[in-house]
């Protein structure tokens, strides 16, 4: 893993692919996903879909990316208001920490 392939844009692109895979199950395939996209209101994904996303993130980036730990920072109202950019920042921070260590 190098910073060039795990910068914010690359992570956003990869997370967008994971989310589009999830949305594909619901027959949704024409969504543009940006840092401002809301998980709940824009994508309408269910909590069980976040379990799938957690698994995809771990498979892609390893054990350093713990989605349950990320979610644990927020209460329910904040989780509902989560934007894709917040997850991108968490992933890049964790990857940077891993590279620095």
């Amino acid at each position: 893993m190098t910073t060039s392939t795990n910068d914010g844009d690359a992570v956003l692109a990869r997370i967008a692919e994971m989310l589009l895979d999830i949305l594909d199950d619901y027959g949704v395939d024409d969504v543009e996903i940006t840092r401002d996209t809301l998980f709940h209101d824009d994508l309408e994904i269910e909590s069980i879909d976040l379990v799938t996303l957690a698994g995809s993130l771990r498979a892609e980036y390893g054990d350093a990316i713990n989605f349950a730990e990320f979610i644990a920072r927020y209460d329910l109202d904040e989780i509902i208001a989560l934007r894709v950019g917040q997850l991108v920042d968490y992933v890049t921070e964790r990857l940077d920490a891993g590279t620095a260590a």
Partner: protein
Amino acid sequence: MTHLTINGRSTHVQVLPPEGGAEGSTPQTVVLVHGMLTDSLASYYFTIAPVFAKAGVEVVMFDHRGHGKTDRTESGYRLEEVVDDLRLLLDALDRRGPVHLVGNSYGGTIAYAFALEHPDRVASVATIESEPPTGAWAAKMSVNLAKARRDLHKPGANAWIVARYGAHTARLAKAALRLLDTTRIADEIPMSRTVADDAIAALPMPVLGIFGSKSDLAQQAPVIAGVITRGRSIVVPGREHSVLVEEPALCERVLITWVTTGELPAPDATASFREVRAG
């Protein structure tokens, strides 16, 4: 591991390995069983499951038939069929020794049914707002499921739920209505095999019942403590059926202590409950 074929259905399973733990020692396993219609393993995955793992307990979670990411078929929703899924799931994971069961609402009824059928495979049971699968339970399910379906079909039902409980609950209610409309779950759960009112007296393992003081199920609290030899009950003041959702910190503390020590935590500022003795 995410999907196993159980009784012919692709079943969504999540296992969280225990953290730490002594070298060579066999960790304890807890199975977290979710409730019906609006529920899935996600209720545990982001809440109590990682806390159990941190405490050195292996966690097994699964989406029941028709729920979450497990296959939905038109028929096959009687309680004993879900109990059989759980047995086969533990076999597939090679968990042959006794496991701890934690169930919320209908998940607790599944836990009681499993413990009655396979007492040698259950180390302890903890239920939140649940009752055993008696005839009275089945009759109540018949009424409640029919009512839920009627109410959710009423014009303006969704707007009312949005206004009262928020958009997230309204979305869950929509998904619940899809399950009720596209399967025979509402007819089949009440047709489940039931047990005698005093059948739970035969449970040899420690059993804990957690209830909201304002729930109509709170009357079960002295029964659990009185009928089951190693049964205990606690009541959470001011709460109704949604104790797990509304008191996550308390439930976490009680359940972790219960599974790891077999005891209840001492009540303090973060754990306001009272123990109910036999009635």
